[in-house]
């Protein structure tokens, strides 16, 4: 537990660093945010007043510190465009993104892990090539392209699945975005499972297991997989990041009201507080994902001992 706490503490400087970087990037953009936010008909006095209200004339660093302090209280400011509290918007969107990301991750495992295992076991046979190529097709198709084709065939032509929209845990709506999203992450998982399994399979203890009289598939299942999954777990980390990135596009195409949609529309409308808030949030998710992976790793691998 102390370890978990410690790891949690180490994420703090990262979170601060991330938010600072983001804050600076978003605030050095030329142009007056107020003028941008208020549209055409506004008179200059109002602009002045709003600037003052938003402390826009303070030095950047001071503003950042204020922002951070407010953020600590859960106050991420107001969305220019959607006229709501950023935190509220994000919390409303979060479950949708979570459902999408988790189901995307599941798909990537359902495709990636068996693909990796099969192609490791059948290394350098045509099955290996076929399976790995299948996994690769996912990364090699632009997500939006795959999404459009999916909508056309499975939504419009075959009418199997809804074209767009989201309805909580209603699986009908999740399947297509999850496949589009998950498939593109599957190749990473497949690759890693494959090479990790190959590495494990050539290790001495696998030979020991074979020598004990276990059959090849028993060895794979009983001895190799658990070891092979250790590095795969670490990749879950990177996966959180790539799933969130993918979600940006997937949510746009399938009209899922998630964090990614928020971020994209915030960019298009220059809604800085919303953009800052949503990217921050996604980033914190990724950091927590890392943490989770580390902790999980620690529990699966009895050797864990850091130097």
């Amino acid at each position, binding site marked *: 537990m102390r370890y978990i706490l410690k790891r949690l503490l180490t994420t703090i400087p990262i979170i601060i660093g991330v938010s600072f970087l983001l804050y600076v990037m978003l605030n050095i953009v030329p142009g007056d945010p107020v003028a941008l936010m208020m*549209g055409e*008909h506004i008179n200059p006095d109002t602009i002045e007043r709003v600037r003052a209200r938003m402390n826009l004339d303070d030095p950047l660093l001071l503003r950042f510190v204020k922002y951070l302090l407010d953020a600590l209280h859960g106050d991420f400011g107001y969305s220019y465009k959607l006229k709501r509290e950023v935190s509220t918007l994000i919390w409303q969107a979060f479950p949708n993104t979570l459902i999408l990301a988790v189901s995307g991750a599941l798909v990537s495992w359902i495709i990636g892990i068996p693909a990796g295992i099969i192609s490791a076991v059948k290394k350098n046979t045509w099955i290996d090539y076929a399976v790995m190529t299948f996994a690769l097709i996912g990364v090699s198709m632009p997500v939006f392209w795959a999404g459009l084709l999916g909508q056309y065939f499975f939504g419009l032509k075959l009418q199997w699945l809804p074209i767009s929209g989201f309805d909580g845990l*209603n699986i009908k709506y999740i399947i297509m975005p999850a496949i589009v999203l998950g498939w593109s992450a599957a190749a990473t998982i497949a690759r890693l499972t494959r090479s990790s399994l190959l590495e494990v399979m050539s290790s001495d203890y696998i030979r020991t297991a074979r020598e004990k009289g276990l059959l090849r598939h028993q060895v794979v299942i009983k001895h190799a997989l658990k070891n092979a999954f250790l590095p795969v777990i670490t990749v879950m980390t990177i996966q959180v990041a790539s799933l969130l990135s993918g979600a940006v596009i997937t949510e746009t195409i399938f009209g899922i*009201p998630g964090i990614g949609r928020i971020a994209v529309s915030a960019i*298009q409308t220059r809604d800085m507080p919303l953009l800052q808030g949503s990217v921050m949030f996604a980033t914190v998710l990724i950091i927590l994902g890392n943490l989770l992976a580390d902790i999980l790793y620690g529990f699966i691998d009895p050797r864990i001992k850091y130097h």
Partner: protein
Amino acid sequence: GSNGDEGASSTSSSSEATGSTAEKVQFVVPYDEDPGTADVAKTTEFYALPLNMFDRLVESVTVAPGKSELVPGLAETWEVSDDGLVYTFHLRKGALFQNGDEVKAEDVYFTFDRMLDPATEGLNTDFFDMISGAEARMNGEADSTEGIKIVDDYTLEITLDEPFGPFVAGLATPAGSVYCKKAVLEAGDQFGIDPALTVGSGPFKLAEWTVNDKIVLEAFDNYWGGRAQYDELVLKIVPDAETARMLFESGEIDVFNCDMARSQIPYFESNDKWKELIVSGPRVGVYYICLNQSIEPLGDVRVRKALQMAIDRENMLAQMFYGKGQLVNGIMPPGLYGYNSDLPEIPYDPEAAKALLAEAGYPDGFAFEVAQETDSPNTLKINEIIQSDLAKIGVDVTITQLDESTFFGIRKTGELPSYYSSWSADFNDPDNFIYTFFTEKNAVSRSFNYVNADIQQKIEDARIMTNAEERIATYQEIEKTIVHDDAAWIPLFELDHLFVVQPYVKNYTVAWNGWSDQSYYSIQIEK
């Protein structure tokens, strides 16, 4: 007027979009962005909500394609004093807000005063700033608006500083929406956002709002004009045009706005199922190219004239818009009060254009920057055509894409490069075009930088003229000078606005001005 042609789209009605309310009769319209708020003090772009949730004193209704009429709204009658300065509105008795309160003059006063109140940071003040005392109110020098008086519960008197012909028409725009004082005070900044707190007197009541997903409006049972003929109006947020088209074809949404993807027009027109279901209407609006005269060499009128002649408008209209519209040679589009059909035609003549350029000292052309918003594929295509047209007279066009806010931010400073855009009428009056673009301050803030003292004077004069004929004549003269003598603007065309609706959607009409945002009150769903 809405800027550009990339507005939201609207559609009508099916019932299975949301499973939970399957028994209710719904009309589902797609929009490509979440409007954020229903409060017209806080938005200048998304009017679908106010148009359906609130009422105005006066409504402008579509009587025929491209034709509107001002009809009583919350005000049953109104009169204007002879000097054109005092307007008296007599409110309808028994009109209820959705919280059961009756609409009173105090609510109207409150609403208009709120728009002008600096604390509101209202965005649509320009429909009210001619009211006397408005300036003082806006500057924080007064606590109330002097020019608006509550005579009694059902009578309101508004005094202007100077006569302003289109004042009532302006109040009929969404900006004139009337709110319930009590509700607004209770809701604070949640007004227009929180369905439980947002109260209007319109035919629909805000019921559910899932940001970036959908907004559900319920028919208001006690609407003074009678309950709508279906149960729910759903605005579904569909950011992608292609998705919207598929949703439409699969019956999940009820209207397809062809502005979202004009390339679909031939498909719908040739499809047996849909071709009968296309609803079309002219847009009281004009597509144009703004020429920023402060950017050299556009200061030279010969150069501007050359550019006017170098663009093959006819081809553009035919190829990009499948001929759905007509060429315009001025600023005021057909359908607008004061439209001048006798303006001379601007010819497509690249040779003459070249000669003019040579005369101006640019025989080899020059570099020309065109700005546009990102994420407007249609504008981009037009710009690419402009790019290739101008290449034929040696002008080298760069297309610079800016996101929406930067685009408008820079435009306000007068430094935005030339751009292609469109304007359609908020209210049916030349003022909504001429003043909007060419009054001195707007000429800068729209990055025209057009200077002509004589014309400036005429624009101001025309505004307060009370003689209609004289006014129209002045506007037509102004228009001719700006477009044909000074070549400060390149008129392109007016476009029809096409919608496709599901077969069970009846009585769907295109708003007189061609907007995507309109009232869906009169629609019927017959499944």
